């Protein structure tokens, strides 16, 4: 029985959803639960079933189209009951009628509310051109509020105590309106209490010990959100997400349960970035030619940008995560059709050739901001087009365990590491682990 953690090594949008879906629908072992361990409702993991049904997973695990597969939202997840209801409605329309029955939520997880959302949008508007590329979902505000007022931040378990919930939501709304008197989208507390209480009655709210039972019952997939290059401590500050996007949260949960997991890093055959921030290999011609079916220009996030395979940035991501056991490479169909996708193994910064970015300790945002300034002046040093799978394997030192040639479940080709149980001769050891 092998648990797996799926994390995007880039800026997000590499295809974690489709990889998680494949592991649940077709993987070498029957996965029975998907655990979310970071981010919140702003995740957008697109899955296309072989019969053409498409769903953008935000809070439900991307394995939900496989009957019986459960979702557990751990305490590291920011839970948005309002978006969750809409997502469930869409799943039901696709024929998945038991999504709520297959869901468990940790009572300690912070709640994202309309008031967080309103504050986040008001703050981003105030930043003007210097905006961070927030999704406008209130994720950053949820984290900030929970850190600043740990006793007053509403949590999932509070949805089962209407009196306490009313007090917490009221206090939150007052604080937001005090700071942003003109903030839009701040419904009356009573209406919010009603919706959140209904959520608390409908879903199974569990304690932290629940995860250990899930891990004992069968193989579990930990589904990360966003990408390592957007990590709150290791990303290019301030163009980051307020979330730990590495393997760290999943490893913490596993350690508490006395379990271990394989680390699977997901990368595209080329790079993308949704929103502003450093993007050394960005190529406007690729942005124009390779629009993403599921990622347009968002009113809060900004443009979807495309660039060439950036092995410097991915090597950096690998170093800050402490290494991976295997890679999943997606969008190989696009790479096959575009013979002009280049490979970047080094940057030129201030006339110097740089092939490795320095990795700092978590928490030093000044240092990260300095790195961002350097990256904004960096120029890519390109090599001619190469097979992206080989380039990634040689540069990152991890075997490619899954190749994806399209959006659907059946577009995936497993490699040796993810083959069905049986002899695994020639399997590479944990590569890149420090």
């Amino acid at each position, binding site marked *: 029985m092998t648990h797996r953690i799926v994390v995007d090594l880039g800026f997000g949008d590499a295809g974690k959803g489709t990889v998680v879906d494949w592991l649940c629908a077709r993987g070498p072992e029957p996965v029975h639960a998907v655990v979310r361990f970071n981010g919140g409702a702003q995740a957008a993991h697109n899955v296309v079933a072989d019969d053409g049904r498409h769903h953008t997973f935000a809070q439900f695990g991307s394995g939900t189209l496989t*009957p019986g597969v459960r979702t557990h939202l751990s305490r590291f997840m920011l839970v948005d009951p309002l978006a969750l*209801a*809409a997502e469930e409605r869409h799943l039901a329309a696709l024929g998945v009628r038991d999504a709520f029955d297959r869901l468990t939520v940790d009572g300690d997880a912070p709640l994202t509310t309309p008031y967080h959302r309103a504050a986040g949008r008001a703050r981003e508007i105030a930043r003007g051109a210097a905006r961070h*590329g927030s*999704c406008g979902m209130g994720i950053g505000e949820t984290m900030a509020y929970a850190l600043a007022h740990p006793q007053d931040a509403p949590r999932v378990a509070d949805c089962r105590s209407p009196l306490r919930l009313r007090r917490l939501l009221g206090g939150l709304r007052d604080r937001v309106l005090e700071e942003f008197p003109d903030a839009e989208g701040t419904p009356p507390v009573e209406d919010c209490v009603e919706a959140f209480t209904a959520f608390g009655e409908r879903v199974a709210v569990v304690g932290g010990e629940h995860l250990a039972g899930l891990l004992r019952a069968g193989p579990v997939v930990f589904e990360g959100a966003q990408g390592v290059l957007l990590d709150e401590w290791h990303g290019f500050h301030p163009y980051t997400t307020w979330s730990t996007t590495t393997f760290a949260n999943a490893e913490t949960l596993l350690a508490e349960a006395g379990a271990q997991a394989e680390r699977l890093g997901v990368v595209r055959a080329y790079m993308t970035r949704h929103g502003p921030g450093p993007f050394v290999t960005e190529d406007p011609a690729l942005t124009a030619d390779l629009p993403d079916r599921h990622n347009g220009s968002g009113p809060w996030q900004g443009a979807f940008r495309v660039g060439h395979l950036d092995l410097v940035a991915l090597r950096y991501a690998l170093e800050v995560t402490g290494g991976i056991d295997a890679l999943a490479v997606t969008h190989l169909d696009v790479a096959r059709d575009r013979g002009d996708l280049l490979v970047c193994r080094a940057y030129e910064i201030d006339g110097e050739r740089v092939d490795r970015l320095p990795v700092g300790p978590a928490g030093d945002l000044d240092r990260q901001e300095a790195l961002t300034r350097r990256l904004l002046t960096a120029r890519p040093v390109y090599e001619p087009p190469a097979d992206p799978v080989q380039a990634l394997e040689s540069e990152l030192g991890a075997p490619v365990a899954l190749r994806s040639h399209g959006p659907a479940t059946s577009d995936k080709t497993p490699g040796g590491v993810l083959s069905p149980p049986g002899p695994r001769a020639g399997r590479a050891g944990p590569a890149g682990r420090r």
Partner: protein
Amino acid sequence: MGSGIWSTDVYDAAQSYRARTGASAFAYNDSGATTTHPGLDPKGVTFRESRDSDEHPDSLAVAVLFDVTGSMGRVPRILQTKLPDLLGLLLRKGYVEHPQIMFGAVGDATCDRAPLQVGQFESDNRMDDDLGRILLEGGGGGQMMESYELAMYFMARHTSIDCFEKRGRRGYLFMIGDELAYPKVDRRLVAEVIGDDLAEDVRTEDVVAELRRMYEVYFIIPEGGYHSGDPRLREFWQGLLGEHVLYLDDLDAVCETIALTIGMNEDAIDLAEGLDHLAEFGSDAGPSVSRALARLDAGRSPVAVSSAPADLDQDGPRRTRRL
């Protein structure tokens, strides 16, 4: 990076959670429907098909039909919440690689509005849609008989399954109920409900013999039906199906019972292994499943399945011709 794709409207959400709180999954029934949903109507159906495809090259047909009349009490509603997990259970430990599951319901053709409802064989959770369209009768004939014979006639003559036709491998039919079948398939009811024009009535045991060429047929008697404890029930179905009559003391264990029955029959597992798997999944159905299947496990080696129970072959020639 993601985007806020799902609505965060507080009023929509409240309404949505209310709608899904304790709401019946029998959406069609609870909307006040009084006739068979067109998608489940057997009338005029040539075949319900279970076919191989590129994606499912080795399909195996599994049909589950349950009694929806009043004598079954709350049983159909419990079944409806449990059965969607069946596919996952079969797949999870590889008992069957490509199951295609069909759900249906049995009523009483002499007096019911929806005497027979049959969905399609599906490989994914579209089968749940069929469950949601099933009409609950709540009536029943009052003479401890339901039209199982009509259901078995339909399965024998109006399903076409690749596992059997291409590979000679039987599909599975599970019926869940607490009453007897009528002794004959009435040609008038066949014409009315299914639309076939038969020259004469067909004896129920002949239909069973015909059906068992193509399907492994099991009858599950759940505790909780009015007649579950009646000895005539056991005698009747054992006479028709031999050891393939299962008593289930906890309906919550129905999926596990069906999955392990198939797993054992496919020689993928023995009972002990299957119970280990259930424990591994964190299922607490083990004890009930164990009680339901203990006899089956004991009588399993060697697997002996005759085309019809021996004592049914006594009088007259058997008709096993498929139309």
